């Protein structure tokens, strides 16, 4: 997986910029792809690097979406301020939840995060006065980004706004995962028992990773609420939590460019398959996921690096 980690960021960025000119009529779709890529990257910091699974990560995505929407509805319409507030509040929520998430094993984590997801969904549903309940929130308007760039109907501002956020998140996570802290997370994934022997405080590391991951997921949610002018319950529902896991798996969990491709590939597949068969598209997704796990061994990133290894005549 290392081979394609190196230097894959620039081609991806060029492809993203090129898509602005190649698919001008799909800018809002591309915007959504960037946002999902951010969300998937946030999630994969946990699954792919620290080896911590979660079935409730949309909680933070939704928290960010509602934070941005509520702020805008109360007059704080500058998007970047909303974004930072979502980052902080979602990160704070994650920090508060670490105590019950980080302990235990994968199974308890799955159940606990699933439970948290259902609780938060119901809480958001009940708090109609704040969230609009099942109707969602759309009675807010965003101001121009940094007071300069107005959101336009074609989605040009949204495109660049989300792409800029994606680039920042990508660079930040790249830096983080190659730092000693990132190595420690991978050590935890590989052999948690051995980590104290090298002086690593496992719980604190996991809490830090969970907080960062929750914050960035919230940032992604805020971006979606701001650029679609809508926040709704499905943004923190189970389906979104499950989808982000599938994106990471399809792309190659643990590989930053792989996960970005996974988010794009998954969204494209979902779109294409549901156009083909609105009723049975889950079947197609299921098959592709199984192929990516069993045949590609490590998703898109695993497949590409296996191919590269073969081309270079290794192994």
């Amino acid at each position, binding site marked *: 997986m290392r081979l394609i980690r190196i230097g894959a960021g620039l081609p991806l960025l060029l492809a993203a910029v090129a898509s602005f000119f190649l698919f001008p009529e799909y800018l809002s779709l591309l915007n959504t792809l960037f946002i999902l890529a951010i969300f998937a990257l946030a999630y994969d910091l946990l699954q792919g690097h620290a080896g911590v699974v979660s079935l409730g990560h949309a909680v933070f995505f939704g928290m960010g979406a509602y934070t941005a929407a509520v702020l805008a509805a109360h007059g704080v319409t500058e998007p970047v301020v909303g974004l930072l507030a979502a980052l902080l509040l979602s990160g704070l929520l994650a920090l508060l939840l670490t105590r019950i998430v980080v302990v235990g094993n994968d199974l308890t984590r799955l159940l606990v995060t699933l439970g948290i997801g259902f609780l938060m969904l119901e809480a958001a549903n009940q708090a109609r006065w704040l969230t609009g309940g099942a109707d969602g929130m759309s009675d807010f308007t965003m101001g121009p980004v940094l007071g300069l760039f107005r959101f336009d109907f074609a989605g040009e501002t949204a495109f660049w706004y989300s792409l800029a956020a994606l680039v920042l998140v990508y660079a930040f996570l790249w830096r983080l995962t190659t730092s000693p802290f990132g*190595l420690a997370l991978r050590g935890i994934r590989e052999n948690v028992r051995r980590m*104290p*022997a090298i*002086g690593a405080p496992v719980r604190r590391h996991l809490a830090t990773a969970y907080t960062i991951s929750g914050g960035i997921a919230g940032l992604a949610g805020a971006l979606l609420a701001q650029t679609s002018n809508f926040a709704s319950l499905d943004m923190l529902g189970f389906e979104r939590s499950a989808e982000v896991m599938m994106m990471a798996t399809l792309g190659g969990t643990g590989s930053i460019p792989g996960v970005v491709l996974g988010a794009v590939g998954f969204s494209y597949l979902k779109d294409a398959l549901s156009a083909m068969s609105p009723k049975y598209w889950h079947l197609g997704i299921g098959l592709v996921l199984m192929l990516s796990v069993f045949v590609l061994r490590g998703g898109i990133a695993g497949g590409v690096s296996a191919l590269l290894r073969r081309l270079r005549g290794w192994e």
Partner: protein
Amino acid sequence: MALLEVEGLTAGYGEAVVLERMSLSVEDGEGLAVLGRNGVGKTTLMLAIMGHARRFAGALRWQGRDIAAVPAYARVRLGIGWVPQERDIFPSLTVEENLLVARRPGPFGLRDAYDMFPRLQERRRNMGDKLSGGEQQMLAMCRTLMTNPRLLLLDEPFEGLAPVIVEELEATLRRLRAEKGFATVIVEQHAEDALGLSDRAVVLDRGRVVLEGRSADLLADFDQVRRWIAV
């Protein structure tokens, strides 16, 4: 003041007692060998010092300070380094990453690890699971040294290694102790190797210290040691 002091330690796992009222101490810079048959509690002693076994009674002091309640990772930060028997190299980290993940401030760094074992530098881009047993042991030792310990606990470091590798490791350990002056506790089945590397030795049987003495004396009168370690 002793660097590490174990006093009346009773420890084990769950309800099982493995060590009974064990007492021993290690001075700064001293080399201690812990000998004994399989299952007498040698590894448990290491685990108890590191905070991975259950302590029923007794005291554990580091430079005079009680550390019985200090979590395992913080003991490493105090200066206790442990090379576990299983080596436990992280398989999907490269050799270099395996070293860097353990790095803590201090005189020993990447450069020193590579000087010590040039083989590790040659293999620094290899994944941890693509190493021979000897290389794994070198890496495990260096990874622990990267935490810059004052005391190095080595659990059966020569197990399953070719004699030529054992010699290399022994020479390195000797040099390390002479140059950097840190204390070592070495647990070994191969009593002669361990005695040759240490100043003092204790022999354990059924969770207790049954024999204690200077390594040179024990080597000179090896029969009394053999009585306790012969299978």
